[in-house]
């Protein structure tokens, strides 16, 4: 087994001293096995207020009708579908992290995939609530499913992008849930093993009888890989289909072939921003700095620059194509976007999505936690405006000028959106309390501490080439997270 080439230039994925498997379990299960701290309570109560607001606003809409919103004969969608696309987009980062990065064997994902997947699921739930609540007759929402029925065998319209949407979202939700839950099984079993009483019973049910033997692990790995394979195309397909709600229409500003890649890039962009928004807080509050490290933050920031720039190029391409098309309606749609009555929304989007993420080119900024956190929120605001700009500014002035109208949101519009954020955080905070926010089993896979210690032994005993040792120590210096006094003694 000797003679293998080891790469020592890789930053350890888990930092900190004396990290053992037991310590990982203890650290990660700390919030699950203890009473919540004050920060959690404050967050939870705030979120719960938001969730209540959501219930009130959606209840009001159901009782009186969609007229409670600010929509009109010209603008039939506004905050509702903006919110829907925004939430679906946010979900995408979770799938990308858990599935695509798994397939590419990017082990650094192991510390963040659990939370990111949870975020995906909760975001898709929020998106799904919009699908139902935006309908004029939500009690008939099941009609969009191709169910056998007694209406003379009436099918859904397979031409309609909304039907594709329904398939896309439901597939996405079920696969994401399955993937997330499968990954949770060993960790739930870990909690079960450490718990007592009722908790033990509950976790024992939810661990599906996980016993940790080789066969189970082997199947677990196989299932994870298969689910990752299934999820990967979803990263591309779901938002592609969502974009087709617009791209297949005839409305100038919607009828655009660039939408699928542009939407997918935008989704990943906003998703990573949301992961950062959540985890930067969570790692601090839950004391998980050793697991979610600067390396993760920086990596995610790099993805944000990349996708943000793709989105920026897409914005410019749209303008070019509008000019190049020679179609006056198309041209006007874009002139109106940037200079019409909603110009501020357009420039808000441009600033937040294209200009401000460019700051992340500076290493100082992208490794600065407060700056990153603020930028991540800015990106999310920008992405909300992107959807608002696409939906509302295209609709409010389309072909026939007599019908041009403005959209003004009502308190219900605002409450449904703000409330959905409350619902999201309520779910996320509950998740932090009952389930491990980091995949314990997967993180243990990437713990380098044992090999680190062995290496130190070897160096001490002089088994290694001097040159190699020097290079190794030098590389360690770059990463302040490893204690170097031990090496200095040599």
């Amino acid at each position, binding site marked *: 087994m000797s003679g293998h080439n080891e790469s020592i230039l890789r930053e350890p994925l888990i930092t900190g001293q004396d990290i053992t498997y037991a310590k990982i379990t203890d650290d990660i299960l700390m919030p699950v096995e203890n009473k919540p701290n004050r920060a959690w309570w404050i967050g939870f109560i705030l979120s719960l207020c938001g969730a209540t607001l959501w219930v009130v606003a959606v209840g009001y809409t159901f009782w009186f009708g*969609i*007229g409670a919103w600010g929509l009109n004969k010209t603008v039939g969608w506004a905050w509702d579908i903006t919110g829907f696309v925004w939430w679906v987009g946010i979900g995408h980062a979770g799938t990308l992290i858990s599935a695509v990065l798994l397939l590419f064997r990017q082990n650094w994902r192991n510390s963040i995939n659990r939370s990111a997947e949870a975020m995906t699921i909760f975001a898709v739930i929020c998106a799904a609530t919009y699908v139902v609540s935006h309908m004029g007759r939500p009690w008939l929402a099941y009609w969009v499913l191709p169910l056998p029925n007694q209406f003379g065998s009436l099918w859904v*319209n397979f031409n*309609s992008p909304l039907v594709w949407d329904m398939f896309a979202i439901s597939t996405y939700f079920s696969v994401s849930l399955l993937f997330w839950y499968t990954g949770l099984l060993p960790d739930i079993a870990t909690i079960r093993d450490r718990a007592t009483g009722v908790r033990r019973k509950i976790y024992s049910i939810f661990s599906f009888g996980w016993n940790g033997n080789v066969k189970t692990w082997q199947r677990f790995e196989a299932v994870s890989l298969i689910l990752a394979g299934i999820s990967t195309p979803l990263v591309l397909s779901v938002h592609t289909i969502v974009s087709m709600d617009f791209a297949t*229409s005839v409305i100038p500003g919607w009828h655009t072939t660039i939408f699928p890649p542009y939407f997918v890039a935008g989704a990943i962009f906003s998703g990573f921003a949301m992961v950062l928004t959540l985890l930067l807080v969570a790692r601090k509050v839950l004391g998980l700095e050793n697991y979610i490290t600067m390396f993760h933050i920086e990596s995610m920031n790099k993805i944000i620059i990349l996708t943000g720039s793709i989105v920026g190029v897409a914005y410019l391409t749209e303008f070019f194509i509008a000019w190049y098309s020679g179609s006056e309606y198309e041209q006007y749609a874009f002139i109106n976007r940037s200079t019409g009555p909603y110009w501020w929304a357009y420039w808000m989007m441009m600033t937040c999505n294209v200009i401000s993420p460019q700051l992340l080119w500076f290493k100082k900024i992208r490794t600065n936690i407060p700056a990153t956190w603020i930028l991540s929120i800015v990106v999310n605001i920008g992405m909300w405006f992107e959807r608002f700009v696409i939906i509302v500014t295209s609709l409010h002035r389309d072909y*026939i*000028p007599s019908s041009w109208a403005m959209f003004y949101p009502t308190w219900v519009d605002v409450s449904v959106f703000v409330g959905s954020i409350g619902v999201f955080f309520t779910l996320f905070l509950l998740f932090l309390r009952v389930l491990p926010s980091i995949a314990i089993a997967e993180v243990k896979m990437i713990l380098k501490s044992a090999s680190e210690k062995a290496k130190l032994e070897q160096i001490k005993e002089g088994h290694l080439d001097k040159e190699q040792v020097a290079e190794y120590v030098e590389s360690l210096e770059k990463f302040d997270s490893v204690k170097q006094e031990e090496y200095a003694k040599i």
Partner: protein
Amino acid sequence: MESNKKYWKGLEEYKNTPDFVENNKNEFAEPLPIEDVLNEAGLSTVTPRRDFLKALGFGLGAVTLAACQTAPLHKSIPYVIKPEEVVPGIPNYYVSSFNGQSVLVKTREGRPIKIEPNPNAGVFNSGTDAQTQASVLDLYDVSKLKSPVLDKAEVNWSKVDEFVKGELNKAQASGKKIRVISSSVNSPSSKAVIADFITAYPNTKHVQYDAVSYTGIIKANENSFGKAVVPKYNFDKADLIVSFGADFLGTWISGEEFTAQYVSNRDAKSLKAGKMSRHFQFEAGMSLTGTNADTRVPVKLSEEGPALITLYNAITGNTLAGGTLPNNVTADKALKLVAKELLQNKGKALVVSGSNDVSTQILVNAINSAIGSYGTTIDLDNPCKRYAGNDAEFAEFINEMNRGEVAAVFILDSNPGYDAPNAKAFADGLAKVGLRVSFSDRKDETASLCNVIAINHNYLESWGDANAYEGYYSIVQPTINPVFNSRQAEESLLIWSDAPVKEYYQYVRNNWEKTILPALGKTWKDVLQTGVFAATAKPAGAYTFGLSLTAVIPSILNNSKALAKDIELQVYESIPMRDGKHANNAFLQELPDPVSKVTWDNYIALAPKFAEKLGFKEFDVVSVKDDRGYTIELPVLIQPGQAQGTASIALGYGRTKVGKAGDGVGQNAYPFVSFTNGTTKYATTVKLSGTGKREELAQTQTHHSFEGRNIIRETTFTEYKKNPATGSGNEHGKHKSYDLWDKYEKPGNNWVMAIDLNACTGCGSCIVACNVENNIPVVGKEEVRKRREMHWIRIDRYYSFNQENDGHDDHAAHGAHGHSNGINSVTKEKEIADLTEDKMNNVSVVHQPMLCQHCDHAPCETVCPVLATVHSSDGLNHMAYNRCVGTRYCANNCPYKVRRFNWFNYWNDSRFDNYLNNEFTQLVLNPDVTTRSRGVMEKCSMCIQRIQAGKLQAKIEKRPLKDGDIKMACQQACSANAIIFGDGNDPNSEVSKALRSERIYYVLEEINVQPGIGYMTKIRNTDTTVQA
């Protein structure tokens, strides 16, 4: 470091037994027990058959019990003895008339639900106006009184009769005056009843007074020609029409009829024959007629008189004083040109003025005489009898009351407490009258001042007749039994005058059989069948004006001088509300004004530059104060084309006692009306001051330019004559189109429509007709403001400004001058805001009816997730309300934005209590059309119920459908015949012929949705025929 150690897990491995070797080939020592699960034993679970049946039984029982809840109970009472003529589901039609328009009343199961034009009416009304269409709703008005009222208490009729007769006898005995006040009465039978009443009570005098008066014309004709009449105007015989502030296509005398006449010289048929009339409009406020004019010149109210003098001088070569317009060079130039054209069109021209001033109308008579209008375009021998009001008599009546000379007043079909020029004096005077009887159907502003309200029938419950023109009679017959304990006013008068025949039906019949029918050679039965009779018209004499104008001119100039001193206010009738009589009609309240597109309100219209000069922005609430101190606060509407220095306010608003829908809508402008020089005057001067408040008007259209898009295609008459396809986009042949989609097969019919933009005047009667036919909810001011009106058909009104020719400064005459770039004169974004004062004055207007285009490749159809909107094999775009889940995707994807969403449950939501939230008013609903629940999309169905009914009728009669069997509600109401509907598969149908016109274009055809409605280009006759 190779390790040679060998571990073994058990003795079997160590010994390498055959068993072990065999098992070791498998990955797992024990196979998955799939077989066990799938075999029969696996299925014999712990739940045996009996348990299953028990569970099933319980389930069934529980479901049955749950289903035992009583379903909502709807009581319906069958006919015990079925009336012979009523077949459930089959409508009956009865002839009747309303406002002198002969109509057919459609009844279903005994209740009137729709008014349609009477095809027998001939030239008198080919369509119906918005008021007539909406009138059916007045029958079902819950704000009406249910019993007669005596001294504020509801009583029975015998008490009323006893009281009124007693008072009448006392009045007669005392020798004091008795007065019957009414709006103009043209009904021969009503006139006879009033005459009988006067015979019984000789102290009685009948005073006719109209809220919007035509006394000026009547008096002028009396003065000029000795005929105190409103003449019959023949716009169809006029090749050149010059109007000074007369909204003859809208509210002036008989807009509905004039529309048909006017359009007959401008529509597709006329254009094909190479003929198009020319129309100049000189006016202050932008009227519906002004929007249709070929050349419209804004003139101040104070300039209208001098303008007429200028025109008179230019035509006759006279040099009367005051014939200049020093401050309006454009108008002056235009008038000189108009004079030349008038002389060229002698005998084929018509000059009309909307003024109610006698002197002005005398001058107009002189002009018309000079251009030979009498006997051709003006007929004094077959006069119009719609208006016979006498302002002076009414003014005198108020004085009589105030002097305490009047003992009894009967107020029939009028509401002076609201609309009299001096309502205060009227009310004060009325208080001094002992017997005050109102025949109003509700406790309105006047009725509430009366001690008796003898509630009258609605016209749909009444017998009666009308005589709109000399020799032209129409009948009014009831179509429903009186709903409330009302009695026809005429019958009340007959009872109170102890007439021998008290039943009004008998009275009308006797009257017809005695006086009208013998001359016509018809029987009473014929009357009830055809509804109208026109005697042969008398030959129209050519009258010559031979009087001196010296007395007239100073009066005109004085009026002008009085107006010129401050902001000149014009009070006018708006198309939807007219004089305010039907202010409680929700259909009319929600009918957008054809010009401003404002619903549910009146406003003060100001020209853009003038408003800027005064420092007002649109929707600023300003206080309007006249020199008599009357003040109202109204929001400003910026009206392009409004003359600088003038303001316009619509009458008919600000009712306080009309009912739920109409109370408190807008402000009352009647107090601005004054009585001067023997007639009422609808112009005054006011002062405006800001209030700092802002109130957004509820407009159905807020963007007023078509942005140069080719959705509107227009050309000039000169260009049209060169190539009829000019401006249609098809000058160089049709465009080639390519298609991704399969073609729809339309084996039977292909329902399509053609709309003539040159015929449509924008009046909006189609909108109301559609509302009534299709049970379209009225949503109210707040919802319209949120842009949520539900109209299936709307009329888009766009302004464009006329481009100048190479910096010529004669903007107004531009239309008349040389070449017009009508096609190029399009307005771009923000250009309107940058327009100069003159450009803004000189706007052109186009009206475009817009409704579901029933696209063959409908974008709405592909996006509906549940197939709620689908295409039919006869070319229609269907909407299945029951299937709709309300995603609104179809509306978003509709390029024409004609889909309407039910944002709320308008039928059952107290917040929309405009009219329909009660069982009584719901009787107006058309049972052939489903009412839509909330959350459902709706849109024009091409009156599919009418298509089905027409098909069924043809089937019953075992014949193929004929062209014209089926008519859309909008098409039927249209006096201008601008909407043609029919089968596109029939090459000989009207619509197929129309769609083959060179002028046809399809709105947004370039996106290839293949709309089913073709539009014909707008043609403007802007090129002058004389050398300037």
